[in-house]
């Protein structure tokens, strides 16, 4: 990303920011008018934004194609589930588990990344895919003879975020205003998401971020310029995984239920699609991609069945199938017609649309 020096932001920018802040603050109440489900959907959009930004570090900044990213989400989710539910009878508070989840996911990131350092594009993709599947299979089967993960049934009754007696899952008044459970989560998530966004922006505009982009552009030249590509790549995996782990822990708490089903290859692909759709490496684009890919399917779900009923008198395709078909077609179509994503950074757009003229 080309840095632009802005010494003093003009007042117009501040006004715009203020507007956005107000809009975001009021959003959950507007959404609640259509039903609490929509507030939950907003919350999901934010969780996925965190996930997509994490993957963006690996795929977008460093150019490492990771098809098994959901494994880190799973690690975070299960760590939370195991440490804050009746399953083992442990009930640690969320502010203890979140760093633990992030930390463990980080370790997994390094473990999964380490063997892949010498691999080229496609092979890296397949190996990471394999890792993701292995984790899912273990989660699904570690219920006998020793029950660790409770297998396909998953773990439920997971504790929500709680401080003393103030629980985020229950509706209740705060400072005199009534908030529903999802609405309370909304603000916490908003804060966390903003933190994640800021951290990502800082990472991109740093010595480390530049090192990642150097590796993506030309690994041989990056090494020649003194970059320790092994460590830098591992850092990409580690950072990406950490964000995934945090998102996973939050997912666990808001859903209050986890099962291996939510962590398959398909989910990995959805997150990848968010990054690709939004424009790899481009933070605003990735946020847009995440929000779109969370909201659109829900919109489809609410409109497809009534629409089919109106048009055909019966439902030919259930909402889930429609959603998936549209998703698959969208992937193909975007790659054919807008490969740089819907809102690409100028960088990626040039890279993907003009044929490379490197005399190699």
């Amino acid at each position, binding site marked *: 990303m080309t840095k632009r020096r802005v010494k003093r932001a003009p007042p117009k920018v501040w006004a715009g920011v203020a507007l956005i802040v107000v809009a975001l603050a009021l959003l959950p109440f507007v959404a609640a008018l259509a039903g609490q489900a929509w507030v939950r959907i907003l919350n999901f959009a934010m969780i996925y934004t965190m996930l997509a930004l994490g993957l963006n570090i690996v795929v977008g900044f460093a150019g490492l194609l990771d098809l098994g990213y959901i494994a880190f989400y799973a690690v975070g989710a299960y760590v939370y589930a195991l440490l804050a539910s009746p399953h083992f009878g442990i009930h640690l508070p969320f502010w203890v588990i979140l760093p633990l989840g992030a930390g463990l996911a980080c370790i997994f990131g390094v473990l999964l990344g380490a063997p892949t350092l010498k691999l080229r594009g496609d092979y890296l*993709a397949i190996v990471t895919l394999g*890792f993701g599947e292995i984790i899912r299979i273990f989660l699904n*089967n570690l219920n006998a003879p*020793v029950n660790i993960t409770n297998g396909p049934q998953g773990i439920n009754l997971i504790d929500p975020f709680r401080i003393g007696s103030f629980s985020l899952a229950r509706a209740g008044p705060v400072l005199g205003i009534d908030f529903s459970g999802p609405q309370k989560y909304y603000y916490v998530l908003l804060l966390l998401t903003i933190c994640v966004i800021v951290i990502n922006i800082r990472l991109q505009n740093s010595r480390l971020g530049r090192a990642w982009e150097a590796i993506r552009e030309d690994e*041989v030249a990056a090494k020649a310029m003194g970059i320790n590509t092994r460590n830098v790549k591992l850092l990409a995996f580690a950072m990406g995984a950490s964000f995934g782990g945090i998102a996973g822990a939050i997912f666990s708490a808001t859903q209050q239920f986890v099962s291996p089903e939510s962590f398959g290859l398909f989910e990995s692909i959805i997150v990848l699609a968010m990054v690709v759709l939004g424009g790899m490496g481009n933070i605003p684009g990735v946020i847009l991609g995440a929000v779109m890919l969370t909201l659109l399917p829900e919109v489809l779900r609410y409109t497809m069945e009534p629409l089919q009923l109106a048009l055909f008198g019966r439902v030919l395709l259930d909402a889930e199938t429609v959603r998936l*078909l549209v998703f*698959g077609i969208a*992937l193909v179509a975007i790659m054919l017609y807008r490969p740089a994503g819907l809102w690409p950074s100028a960088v990626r757009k040039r890279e993907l649309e003009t044929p490379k003229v490197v005399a190699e």
Partner: protein
Amino acid sequence: MEILLQQIINGLTLGSVYALVALGYTMVYGIIGLINFAHGEVVMIGAMVSLSVVTALLGAQLPLPTAVIILVGLFVAILVCITIAYSMEKIAYRPLRKAPRLAPLITAIGMSIILQNAALVVWGRNYRTFPPIIHPTPHELLGATMTDLQMFIVVLAAILMAALLFVVQRTRLGMAMRATAQNPQVAGLMGIDINVVISAAFVIGAALAAVAGLMVMTYYGIAHYYMGFLLGLKAFTAAVLGGIGNLAGAMLGGILLGIIEALGAGYIGDVSNICGFPWLSDSLREQCAASDNQVSMFGSNYQDVFAFFVLILVLIFRPSGLLGERVSERA
């Protein structure tokens, strides 16, 4: 010992199927460097289509022998699979031939999702069973059993593989394919129509996939819209194991992977038996006592993990595969 032989026989059968599917992956990767993610789905469609045709023919109660019914089913399946593969290549992959690696990979994933869900729409969510028209007779073989269905699968696969090798080594099309795999630009300059060659690779792969689909259908008796994913991934592992881009490698890799999986699934229970350990919890001790001291940490439900482990190990330690060439990179 009988278990060993039995597992090897089972593995050989499964491996033959893997080999047929792996050939599709390796041909396409060898020529255009694309991992055709959607290939597993083509196998699934082959299985489903043949199932539908066979069921329909049986329903029509025509006085045809079983073999003919199955052959008709196979024939239709091959036609459908070829059409799908050809269209996929033309619509989704050909325009992206010059694009950076990520684009065709994502497109392939997209196609895989489309095919899966199209199958879901057509054939529904439930497991579909193959009508009980085949009654495999078991034969004794050194203490283990091999049914004639298993023998048939192994032999048919071998014949098809031999035929493919013949085509690739002895015909003009085969030579064109080998040339294009080596250097597409120069092959084009020498008058080879790259598009025909690439389409041929997809078409041949799809035909083999259809046969593999029917084999899986008859062997396991069930088909499901999601079966292509795992099968495809394992077949790809087989192709990589043998050396991607190498036909003999795909065959060897397929058979080897089948045997590894079968042996693994067969023995993992024994290997991970924890009843021998001194430090067991009470509930575990109970379980051991109740099951004749056979409580395994990992059972055959971990079977799929073997393929992935093989894949990862091969790609890390010997990325060129068993029969592949070692390519050194000149800066």
